[in-house]
């Protein structure tokens, strides 16, 4: 059993998805999906423990050795991503029962969980696989399931949002496929680590460059890097609350992981950042993302849209760290990937609590609710402070690494911009908190009570994690640092 540890997180949700399809009862489907996600989370925990103990794990799928068969390889980086994705997936499942019952027609609930499990399996597959084509397939599995999940939103505009995401997502995936094709033309291999070794021996020619370009653009689309982020705000704003929380915390992160994997493991930092001016391009795009996302977020009157735009900005931070191409910068990227999943997860879940109680997530609707729903807004406040990046929350740790990374390179204007940008987050989070706590409630809201514990407990689990990982960073920053050193130390 333990020998198969690297593949189990992918297989388990796939099987469970098939079983779920056979279940006619909403509650049973939820139980199965919930049990599966928690089991996968436990597996991820076991995996990261093993990897930190013994180093990378290599698993040959079906017993076929590496360059011919599909290889799964787990190192510090993807073990951490795996932990984040499964963790969020499991916590969100706790929340899902009440929330989904409210938002999705009862007859469709089992199917909803099928899509959820498929999305999870796809994301975990991307994270674990060491094969470029396999990665594309999992990317599409997760994307297709996400389109379906988003389309379940209660508002009819969730359909158009899902359709737009489908079109953009498919273009991105096709670009990735094209890129993989170019690399295969040159090297005749699809294994990421084999690719890395063979590309090392190849003079950088136009075919490699083309493959590189296609991959980068395709993945940037999937991870919603400015200006390829247009699908994201609507998709997150109109999806069911559970889906917004899950996808915001995981989907773009996994795409980012894939980008990091290609850039650093396959192409190598040397090639990417010294022979091609990718660092400069990413730096510019990331800063544009940070500022445009934050500015637009300030003017949103709908909380979920606001958070969605904030996600665009936060992705900017992650890409920013990447563009430094230094150990500190890359650590910042990975740490922020981890921390942002916690903050955005908590924020979307808190907004979900709000939607559950008052059926609206607009700014006007929340006036004075802070005193009526203290736990909901408490969680929002904690996660919001983390988003701004103030101590003692997880967000501060990300910011610290990011600013250190910039100063290390002597890029102090960038450091100043990062700090300025976090003040923009202060504005949009502050607006919400001010309205919730210091505005007089309208009469209609007099009777509102706190959200049910079934929703609050998972929300606070994530909010509490924001505090915990602000103080104890052995798991987040510790592993991220190790991953960054491994990535820059060359392939393997």
């Amino acid at each position, binding site marked *: 059993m333990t020998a198969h540890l690297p593949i189990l997180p992918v297989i388990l949700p796939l099987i469970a998805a098939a079983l779920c399809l056979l279940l006619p009862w909403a509650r049973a489907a939820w139980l199965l999906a919930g049990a599966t996600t928690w089991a996968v989370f436990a597996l991820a925990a076991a995996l990261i423990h093993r990897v930190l103990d013994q180093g990378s794990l290599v698993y040959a799928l079906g017993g076929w050795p590496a360059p011919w068969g599909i290889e799964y390889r787990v190192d510090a980086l993807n073990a951490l991503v795996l932990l984040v994705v499964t963790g969020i997936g499991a916590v969100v499942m706790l929340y899902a029962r009440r929330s989904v019952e409210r938002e999705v027609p009862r007859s469709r609930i089992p199917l909803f969980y099928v899509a959820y499990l498929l999305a999870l399996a796809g994301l975990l597959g991307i994270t674990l696989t060491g094969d470029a*084509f396999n990665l*594309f*397939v999992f990317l*599409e599995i997760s994307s*297709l399931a996400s*389109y*379906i999940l988003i*389309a379940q939103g*209660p*508002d*009819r*505009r969730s*359909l*158009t949002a*899902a*359709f737009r995401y*489908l*079109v953009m997502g*498919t*273009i991105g*995936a*096709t670009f990735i*496929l*094209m890129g993989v*094709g170019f690399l*295969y*033309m040159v090297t*005749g291999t699809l294994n990421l680590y084999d690719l890395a070794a063979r590309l090392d021996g190849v003079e950088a020619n136009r075919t490699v460059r083309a493959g590189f370009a296609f991959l980068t653009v395709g993945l940037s689309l999937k991870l919603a890097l400015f200006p390829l982020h247009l699908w994201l705000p609507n998709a997150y704003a109109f999806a069911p609350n559970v889906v917004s929380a899950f996808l915001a915390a995981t989907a773009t992160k996994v795409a980012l992981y894939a980008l990091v994997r290609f850039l650093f493991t396959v192409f190598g930092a040397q090639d990417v950042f010294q022979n091609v001016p990718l660092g400069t391009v990413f730096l510019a795009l990331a800063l544009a993302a940070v500022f445009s996302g934050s500015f637009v977020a300030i003017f949103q009157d709908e909380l979920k849209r606001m958070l969605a735009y904030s996600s665009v900005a936060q992705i900017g931070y992650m890409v920013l760290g990447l563009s430094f191409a230094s150990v500190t910068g890359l650590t910042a990227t990975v740490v922020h990937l981890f921390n942002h999943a916690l903050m955005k997860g908590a924020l979307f879940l808190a907004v979900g609590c709000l939607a559950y109680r008052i059926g609206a997530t607009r700014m006007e609707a929340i006036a004075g609710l802070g005193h009526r729903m203290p736990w909901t807004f408490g969680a929002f406040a904690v996660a919001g402070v983390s988003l701004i990046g103030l101590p003692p929350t997880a967000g501060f740790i990300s910011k610290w690494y990011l600013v250190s990374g910039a100063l290390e390179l002597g890029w102090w204007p960038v450091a100043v911009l990062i700090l300025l940008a976090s003040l923009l987050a202060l504005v949009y989070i502050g607006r919400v908190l001010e309205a919730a706590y210091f505005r007089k409630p309208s009469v209609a809201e007099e009777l509102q009570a706190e959200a049910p514990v079934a929703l609050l407990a998972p929300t606070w689990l994530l909010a509490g994690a924001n505090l915990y990982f602000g103080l104890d960073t052995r798991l987040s920053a510790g592993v991220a640092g190790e991953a960054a050193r491994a990535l820059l130390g060359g392939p393997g």
Partner: protein
Amino acid sequence: MAWLGLYNYWLVIFLMMAGFYVVIAHGNMVKKLIGLNVFQTSVFIFYITIAKADGGAPPILTEGLTRYANPLPHVLILTAIVVGIATTAVGLALVVRIWERFGTVEDEQIPDSDDPE
């Protein structure tokens, strides 16, 4: 005329751009999906044509066969085709639902923001 020898790439580029153009230029969602299909097909053709070896035989194990086409891209593209079909199916399902809820599949006729009735 070396570039004529690379006619398969020209074909791929033409299909890709044509598909991309349809996706961007048309407001009709069904047409967008068709464009998306053409776009994807270009990559399928790309994969299949790069598998061809000059003077290569079909990759079936026979005595004395030394030069044969690479079978792997075909296999890959089979998978990609399945993915493409699934995408189209989901896309069409969404279009049907959009038709039911909005009464149109034209992008411009769908209001950017409406308050749910």
